[in-house]
């Protein structure tokens, strides 16, 4: 049995974090650093009639003030990686030029000797705004009567997209029933607890620019910044130091990252900008933001015949890295965990005077899962069937995998009923229903919700990705026998310093504390893709495994050479290569020559060698097999052949307080299947955190803009991130269906909680309110909404 893989190993990254000794961007102090503060637009849509920075420039401590005009064309556009046909891409620069398009749009950067002075001077900049009509509501923005945000485009439609297979019109026409429902996935803010931050240092002698940024994608960021700044990529170094959470918000290229590099080069000092929470809520990407209508056709027995989703995606004013791509992921996942013969998505992506939406944990998949899982409950309600029965009816059977969906995907493996059955058993579903009936008789409001989700993970085959879907790893054994792993992923809480060390320690038979995992520095680590899309362990971990396997072949050859044996005669166990004894004596005993008659090992008196012995020999290089390269290092770039499709069932029981409308969780049961598991403790952490964010979307969180486009939820006093008492005790279990997409059999787990949980919670609340004729409610479902229903 493996010593580390599959076990609850305490994280090796934790000591520095629990002692307060880790280094996030703002903890890195360089001498002579200047500090940047931004003037940001207070209007959603306005023309800048006058911008006067002269007073600010004279303020104490201020070194420089830069505007969009000062930067001009010296920094290229903030990139969007999407290549959708006919996509309209507005020219997006780090600082506004002439017009502002959303509250929080950066207008000027003040550079000063300390952050207080920089912030003070921002108030001395004079701006005359000529307000323009703000386009806030996404549905209004799509209408021809709407004011136009980017005049050059003529309207606010960034793109239209239709996808899906099967004859949807025929499928809906031939259904016994067609149910229609308007469904909203509200705008959310990712709220990584560490806001963004950038430290830039240009060294004029070396002509080298180093950017420390709180990012999930150091290498992709380096490439994009090289293009934006016109600095050769091999003179640009991006370092993601300790990163305090991302959830997709740091899977991006932001104007501030380029601008800080430009300022440092211009002034010759290191410059730092640390985002305030207010800036974070205004000007770091938001997630979700879909307003749609579903049509679902079904037979009277609950068989689903077709699903259409017409959706308006609220893109915001500009396109960030993946903004237009998010609804396409929604389209891909519209089959959910069901056999739906005809599926169609019609997306209208619209510009609004708001911050861009982009990838927030789940990134298009929570929206799809919410649509499908609400649709299943609508079918059940329409037909008077149990929601479990409807789901069972439409699941593909395990033997139908790889399962092809009408959205063009091949689900790798799955046993959806197994996860459902386990969740039913743990929650004692029948008894819960019994309790619900009894409670209803007593006038109490109990609801039970279920969600059987599937997600698309381990992104992904490069064919399907905008910038490569592979991942890289180098495994190196140093002369003293210590092991170094360089990974192209960029963990920021997921714990791969530990889980990758588990893989390597098991493979090499060394202590986990002898393995150091290094990531997030483009000058140290070979090119990599990064951490997002539940890919790091499934794709990056496989690269680590493949690299260490490559290295072991070399170790074996060196060991065989030093022991005077053939490589096939060696066994490897607990970090030691030994000459296999048993076989030779058996062969000798029966008096036969072995089939492939091997030379008798010349063992130089030694029967075995440790990893340390070989490591030293490989570096001293005095006695290596002929033509072998010295050193002990292997690099592997792993390209996955498919995505993976983890799945599971969440069952939730809630009780509603009739007096206050508050929702209380009675039970929360989650059975998730993410394939093989390297560290169950880390997997639990991922799922629990994801569910908490789902609770946030279902009950509390929403980015609210008023009619003028003013952000109402501009601080954490108004944007309601769940607190400890808002999250119940979660009962977690797993099923384990391996995948053959990667040799570790891992599917990925980073986003499961945020994908599976939201509809289960909403379904439970709707179920509780069914006696009032409720079939659907929009999120966040606030006590006031519920109270009004119960009171009317």
């Amino acid at each position, binding site marked *: 049995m493996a010593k580390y893989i599959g076990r609850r190993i305490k994280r090796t*990254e934790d000591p520095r974090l*629990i*002692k307060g000794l880790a280094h996030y961007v703002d903890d890195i102090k360089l001498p002579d650093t200047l500090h940047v503060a931004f003037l940001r637009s207070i209007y959603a849509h306005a023309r800048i009639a006058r911008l006067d920075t002269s007073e600010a420039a004279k303020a104490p401590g201020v070194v420089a003030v830069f505007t969009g005009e000062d930067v001009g064309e010296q920094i290229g556009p903030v990139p969007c990686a999407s290549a959708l046909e006919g996509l309209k891409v507005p020219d997006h620069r780090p600082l506004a030029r002439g017009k502002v398009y959303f509250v929080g749009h950066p207008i000027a950067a003040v550079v000063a000797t300390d952050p207080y002075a920089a912030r003070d001077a921002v108030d001395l900049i004079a701006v005359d705004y000529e307000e323009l009509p703000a386009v806030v509501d996404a549905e209004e923005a799509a209408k021809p009567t709407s004011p136009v945000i980017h005049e050059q485009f003529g309207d606010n439609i960034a793109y239209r997209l239709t996808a899906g297979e099967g004859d949807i019109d025929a499928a809906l026409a031939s259904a016994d029933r067609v149910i229609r429902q308007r469904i909203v996935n509200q705008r959310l803010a990712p709220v990584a607890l560490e806001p963004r931050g950038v430290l830039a240092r240009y060294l004029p002698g070396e002509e080298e620019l180093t950017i420390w940024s709180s990012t999930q994608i150091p290498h992709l960021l380096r490439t994009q910044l090289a293009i934006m700044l016109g600095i050769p990529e091999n003179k640009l170094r991006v370092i993601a130091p300790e990163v305090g959470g991302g959830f997709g918000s740091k899977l991006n290229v932001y104007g501030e990252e380029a601008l800080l590099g430009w300022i440092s080069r211009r002034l010759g000092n290191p410059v730092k900008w640390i985002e305030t929470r207010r800036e974070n809520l205004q000007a770091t990407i938001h997630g979700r933001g879909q307003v749609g209508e579903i049509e679902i056709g079904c037979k009277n027995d609950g068989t689903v015949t077709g699903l259409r989703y017409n959706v308006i995606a609220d893109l915001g004013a500009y396109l960030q890295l993946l903004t237009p791509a998010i609804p396409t992921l929604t389209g891909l996942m519209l089959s959910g965990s069901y056999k739906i013969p005809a599926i169609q998505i019609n997306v209208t992506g619209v510009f609004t005077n708001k911050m861009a939406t982009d990838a927030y944990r789940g990134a298009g998949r929570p929206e799809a899962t919410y649509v499908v899982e609400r649709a299943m409950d609508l079918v059940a309600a329409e037909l008077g069937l149990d929601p479990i029965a409807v789901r069972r009816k439409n699941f593909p059977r395990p033997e139908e995998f790889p399962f092809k969906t009408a959205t063009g995907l091949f689900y790798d493996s799955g046993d959806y009923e197994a996860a459902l059955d386990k969740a039913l058993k743990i929650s004692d579903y029948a008894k819960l229903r019994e309790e619900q009936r009894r409670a209803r008789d007593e006038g109490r409001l109990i609801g039970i919700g279920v969600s059987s989700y599937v997600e698309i993970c381990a992104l992904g085959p490069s064919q399907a990705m905008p910038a490569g879907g592979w991942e890289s790893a180098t495994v190196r054994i140093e002369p003293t026998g210590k092991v170094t792993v360089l990974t192209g992923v960029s963990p920021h809480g997921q714990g791969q310093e530990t889980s990758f060390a588990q893989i390597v320690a098991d493979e090499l038979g060394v202590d986990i504390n002898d393995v150091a995992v290094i990531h997030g520095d483009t000058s140290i680590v070979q090119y990599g893709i990064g951490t997002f899309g539940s890919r790091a362990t499934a794709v990056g971990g496989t690269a680590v495994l493949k690299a260490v396997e490559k290295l072991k072949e070399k170790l074996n050859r060196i060991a065989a050479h030093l022991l005077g044996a053939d490589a096939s005669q060696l066994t490897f166990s607990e970090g030691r290569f030994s000459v296999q004894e048993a076989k030779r004596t058996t062969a000798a005993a029966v008096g036969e020559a072995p089939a492939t008659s091997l030379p008798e090992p010349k063992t130089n008196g030694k029967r075995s060698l440790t990893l340390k012995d070989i490591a030293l020999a490989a570096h001293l290089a005095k006695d290596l097999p002929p033509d072998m390269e010295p050193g002990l290092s292997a690099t592997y770039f792993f390209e996955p052949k498919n995505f993976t499709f983890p799945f599971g069932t969440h069952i939730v029981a809630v009780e509603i307080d009739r007096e206050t409308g508050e929702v209380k969780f009675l039970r929360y049961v989650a059975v998730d299947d993410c394939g093989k598991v390297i560290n169950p403790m880390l997997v639990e952490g991922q799922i629990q955190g994801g569910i908490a964010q789902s609770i946030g979307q279902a009950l509390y969180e929403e980015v609210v803009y008023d009619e003028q486009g003013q952000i109402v939820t501009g601080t954490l006093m108004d944007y309601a991130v769940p607190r400890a008492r808002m999250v119940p005790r979660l009962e977690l279990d797993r099923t384990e269906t391996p995948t053959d997409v990667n040799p570790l059999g891992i599917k990925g787990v980073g986003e499961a909680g945020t994908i599976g949980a939201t509809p289960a919670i909403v379904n439970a609340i709707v179920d509780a309110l069914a006696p009032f004729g409720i079939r659907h409610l929009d999120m966040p479902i606030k006590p006031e909404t519920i109270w009004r229903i119960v009171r009317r």
Partner: protein
Amino acid sequence: MKTTVRLRVNGVERSHQIEPRLLLVHYLRDILGLTGTHIGCDTSTCGACTVLLNGQAVKSCTVFAVQADGAEVTTIEGLARNGELHPVQEGFWEHHALQCGYCTPGMIIAAAQLLARNPSPTEDEIRHGLEGNLCRCTGYQHIVEAVQYAAQKMRERK
């Protein structure tokens, strides 16, 4: 106009000439170099900056450094004693109560103070006691378990 503050931070006497408007968190981070105390919001909502001021948990982004004049401050860096982790720190490590680690110093300080006040808290009391501290990664369950672990350890050691 600068003014003098004198205080004990993690057992060491400190004194500096500072601007009266300087926040305690910036004094700790930028002048003393104790960067374990983090800043996560502008509104005293998230608790990442929690430190002990004369034994009371306070959000150091809402305290002027001059208000701490003459006080005893403990930050995350001062919680371990003689190289030995505080039981709450141990619990966080044992129970995987942190992911990105950004809220962790404030969360640990708040939990330590919670246990100083109530050595045997119920789960509900722990969740209530940590309401001033936001964590976006863990969903709090492992944090609750970590605090229960620490409570047990502290009772055993008495």
